[in-house]
């Protein structure tokens, strides 16, 4: 497809709003007569709330009410069904009973006239608990195995026999600490009841989902709810489904008859607003002497909470990544006493690919083979799991291009052999991969008499650039310039769009917008060829769209706006739907890439830093290469944190979170930024959708931690199998 706008670097259409403060984030919203909510978190992780002491708090200035068990509307649980799009992050309702399942669980919500008054009163609430022993702080602190999940297993061939008979094998166990999303914008809700309708402003990655969950929980018909999320300061997955603060806030607003806004503190956000679960993974790989994989077994355990059954699917990529006849994956799930985990950027596969790609590096060492060569020898030309051909796979090009740009051929394989002054240089690599997902979607487009176009979809822009790619799509197909295109997202009453998750919005929403736009064109052509129209009597099929105008084969050209104005019409509309079709049974859809990493290790002062990352990623067509590259770069930064510093520290004695803030939970800062060179291959995947795009928000995070860990091994000769690789694990003591 020869394109004018799509595939070209495009500045964000909402950039001006963000720079000038006009972008209306949830916390910016004010309602008349509004109150502020502030949750009171439990300070134990396992036990029962015996008594709340509220008298002091109630008497404090500005306090209107304090909600808690026994003083809160009676609500319903949400069915929590993916099919019916009413999923929630915590199934249990706030204040449902007096059981405490995790540190930070809300035991009350203080509502006051100001935020500061609500917070001060929340601090003045005291609770008596009956503590119970045996709180499980983390999978990392226990030998418990959890229960085996039948839903997550897969196997082919006879991996046990093949392993036993193979000449070269490795068998290692890897741990990854729980991580926090650390999205810049904390969770927040403004709930308002107007004429029995519930209007909610929420920082949400799924306005349609939250809409349906709210309707179920409050027993309302769907049309009596509206969820708005125009701008989101990111979420990385922890805003996909609704959290208890939103339910508590809406319940309080209902009881008080006044709007209530609740903004979580960073501490609350980290304790009870989602996390990537810790994991333990055993990898058993075996190869023949030439490095061909003959057996792969990947057995995982992850955490969930006592308030949800969330499962991070760790092994889901493993059967598809390499050609191997004998494969088995299994997964166990262990309940722990902390706030429930939820999807976090490339959930499951980020953890699973880390273990697999580290294990492959270990196998390469056993084979005395270059780790890149090992991956090439096991290249999967079709999807070995589904046995379907790939819709479009160019991983070999990623390997070749990234290796060349990195200078991989100059690598001395001996650990510690490459030095620069006080520093030892380590080079490592890993494969990246993420499935290409697509869901059904609806959209609406309006062509207006002033020549502008409005496109609307009930998905949302979580900061990744969805507004811009929707505008690009309209501009591409209509010829209307970007400045005359208005994009409306983030309202649950718009035609239903997808969650901003799974890297699926691009492939899901753009075909629906295109369908709606084409239907709007048809409506316009009907007007144009009808009575009094500029092309009266012409065959609508003969008219073409060009530069924001209709054109016939005689060279006559009338702009959209002119046409509508002539007919005294304000606008014409098009509704459109799009969904994946038969292609799902014909191809396997997945994106691939390769990361190459240089670390610097100064053994004299135990300083480990990532110095350089070179990545080549194939995501099909990048609709907006600027934003797409930015997604991969951001993922790499996140991966550096995962590899080296990030860990939610739960006190093993009582499962309370110790590092619940930006200072003590260590994400990379600017000074940690390496030189990052991201290349996006441009191979449109038209088998997947008409725009050839597979999505880009998550793939960059997969494999990066393994590439770093493999580079650490190359520098130090030490294989650190537990993330994060903090300096005490590497230093010589």
């Amino acid at each position: 497809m020869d394109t004018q706008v799509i595939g070209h670097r495009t500045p964000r259409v909402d950039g001006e709003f963000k720079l000038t403060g006009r972008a209306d984030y949830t916390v910016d919203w004010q309602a008349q007569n509004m109150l502020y909510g502030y949750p009171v978190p439990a300070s134990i992780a396992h036990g029962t709330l015996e008594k709340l002491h509220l008298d002091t708090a109630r008497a404090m200035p500005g306090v209107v009410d304090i909600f808690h068990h026994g003083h809160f509307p009676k609500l319903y649980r949400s069915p929590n069904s993916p099919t019916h799009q009413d999923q929630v992050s915590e199934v249990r309702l706030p204040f449902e009973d007096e059981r405490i399942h995790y540190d930070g669980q809300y035991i009350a919500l203080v509502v006051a006239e100001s935020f500061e008054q609500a917070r001060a009163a929340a601090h003045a609430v005291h609770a008596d608990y009956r503590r119970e022993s045996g709180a499980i702080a983390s999978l990392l602190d226990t030998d418990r195995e959890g229960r085996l999940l039948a839903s997550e297993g897969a196997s082919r061939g006879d991996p046990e026999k093949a392993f036993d008979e193979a000449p070269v094998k490795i068998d290692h166990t890897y741990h990854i600490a729980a991580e926090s999303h650390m999205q810049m914008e904390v969770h927040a809700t403004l709930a308002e009841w107007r004429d029995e309708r519930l209007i909610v402003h929420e920082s949400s990655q799924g306005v349609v989902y939250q809409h349906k969950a709210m309707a179920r929980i409050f027993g309302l018909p769907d049309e009596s709810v509206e969820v708005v999320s125009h701008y989101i300061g990111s979420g990385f997955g922890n805003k996909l489904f609704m959290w208890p603060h939103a339910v508590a806030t809406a319940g309080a607003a209902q009881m008080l008859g006044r709007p209530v806004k609740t903004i979580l503190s960073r501490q609350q956000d980290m304790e009870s607003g989602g996390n990537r679960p810790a994991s333990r993974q055993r990898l058993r790989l075996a190869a023949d002497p030439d490095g061909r994989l003959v057996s792969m077994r990947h057995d995982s355990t992850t955490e969930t909470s006592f308030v949800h059954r969330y499962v991070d699917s760790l092994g889901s990529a493993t059967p598809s990544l390499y050609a191997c006849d004998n494969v088995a994956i299994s997964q166990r799930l262990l309940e722990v006493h902390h706030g429930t985990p939820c999807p976090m950027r490339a959930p499951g596969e980020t953890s699973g690919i880390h273990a697999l790609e580290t294990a492959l590096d270990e196998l390469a060492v056993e084979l005395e083979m270059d780790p890149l060569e090992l991956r090439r020898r096991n290249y999967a030309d079709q999807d070995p799991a589904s046995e379907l051909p790939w819709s479009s796979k160019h991983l070999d090009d990623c390997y070749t291009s990234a290796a060349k740009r990195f200078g991989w051929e100059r690598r001395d394989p001996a650990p510690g052999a490459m030095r620069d002054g006080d520093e030892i240089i380590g080079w490592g690599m890993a494969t990246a991969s993420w499935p290409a997902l697509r869901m059904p979607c609806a959209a609406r487009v309006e062509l207006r008499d002033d020549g502008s176009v409005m496109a609307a979809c009930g998905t949302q822009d979580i900061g990744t650039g969805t507004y811009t790619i929707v505008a690009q799509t309209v501009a591409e197909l209509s010829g209307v310039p970007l400045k005359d295109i208005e994009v409306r997202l983030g309202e649950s009453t718009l035609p239903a769009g997808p969650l901003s998750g799974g890297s699926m919005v691009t492939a899901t929403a753009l075909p629906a917008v295109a369908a709606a736009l084409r239907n709007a064109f048809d409506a316009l052509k009907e007007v144009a060829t009808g009575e009094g129209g500029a092309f009266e009597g012409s065959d609508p099929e003969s008219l073409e769209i060009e530069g924001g105008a209709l054109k016939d084969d005689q060279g006559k050209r009338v702009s959209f706006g002119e046409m509508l104005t002539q007919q005294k019409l304000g606008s014409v509309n098009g509704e459109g739907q799009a969904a994946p079709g038969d292609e799902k049974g014909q191809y396997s859809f997945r994106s691939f890439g390769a990361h190459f990493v240089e670390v610097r290790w100064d053994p004299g002062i135990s300083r480990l830093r990532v110095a350089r990352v070179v990545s080549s990623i194939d995501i099909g067509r990048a609709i907006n290469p600027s934003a797409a590259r930015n997604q991969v770069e951001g993922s790499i930064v996140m991966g550096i944190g995962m590899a080296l510093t990030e860990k939610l520290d739960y006190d093993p004695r009582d499962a309370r979170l110790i590092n619940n803030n930006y200072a003590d939970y260590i994400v990379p800062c600017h000074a940690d930024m390496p030189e990052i060179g991201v290349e996006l291959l441009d191979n449109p995947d038209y088998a997947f959708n008409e725009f050839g795009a597979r999505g880009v928000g998550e793939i960059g995070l997969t494999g990066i931690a393994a590439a770093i860990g493999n580079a650490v091994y190359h520098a130090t000769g030490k294989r650190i199998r537990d993330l994060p690789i903090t300096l005490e694990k590497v230093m010589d003591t």
Partner: protein
Amino acid sequence: MRNFAFSSAENVDQAVSSERGNAGEASYIAGGTTLIDLVKLDVMRPVQVIDLNRLPLREVERLDDGRLRIGALVSNTDLAHHPLVTQHYPLLSQALLAGASTQLRNMASTGGNVMQRTRCPYFRDVAAACNKRAPGSGCDALEGVNRMHALLGTSEHCIATHPSDMCVAMTALGATLTLEGPNGTREIAFGDFHRLPMDRPDLEHELEPDELITHVTLDTPVVGGGSHYLKLRDRASYEFALASAAAMVAVEDGVIREARLALGGVATKPWRAVEAEQALAGKPARTESFEKAAEIALSDAVPREHNAFKVPLARQAIVRALEKASAASKHH
């Protein structure tokens, strides 16, 4: 945040004579980088807050005797970039710039940084046991998550690390604090100002409740001394030290004439390693001498479950900092 009374002092006399309630209920505020944070967490609960920002304490001046007098309100940023500091006390400049972030350094004051509170997570959590925050309640850090905690100067009541980088450099350089109170002015050596936790970790320093730090005066620079501040930490910036070393070495003909060494990130107060300094004097400026000094400096270290690695890490910080300082000495 609880309500508190707020007033601005127009001069030092007014600041120290302001009517106030019980000890601990009144707080001075300069940059507020510690106070506001801890008030929001309900850890500090001042009833009265006295703003110091109108006081004329923003000068950095060289005294006739060669010492450098720093007003308590000089920001960390201004101090780090002040020509007299970068020229004569580069160690202090390096230490300041190793601390916090640009935004915090723009706000943080010299006096306030001397008074900086610990980052111990149990101190910051009102539901945890902490003898520093709630005397007699115990110490959850002793057997808890104590990777960031101190090795030196600890007690069975507190192992909280003193967080400042600036103070580590100042204790190495030698300095005097000027304190103003209702009964007049007094001076105290920098090294005597911070207390060890012992059995009263809530008593962190020698400042009386109605006293104010007005100046920090640095000793005259060591002639010919090279210096280096090395901070080892999990990330490259905006992060507390796992171990830091402030080193100053004056070398003549390959022999150490004078050495100064102070440690951060590993002690309950800014830690001057006096015995290590004495051991260095007269020794050859070589790695073996520095390694010996590191051994001496850490000989009293009491590691805990998660922070044992800080012993070798601090050793590395000391040796590398001394090497760099020695190499920077004018007559090596």
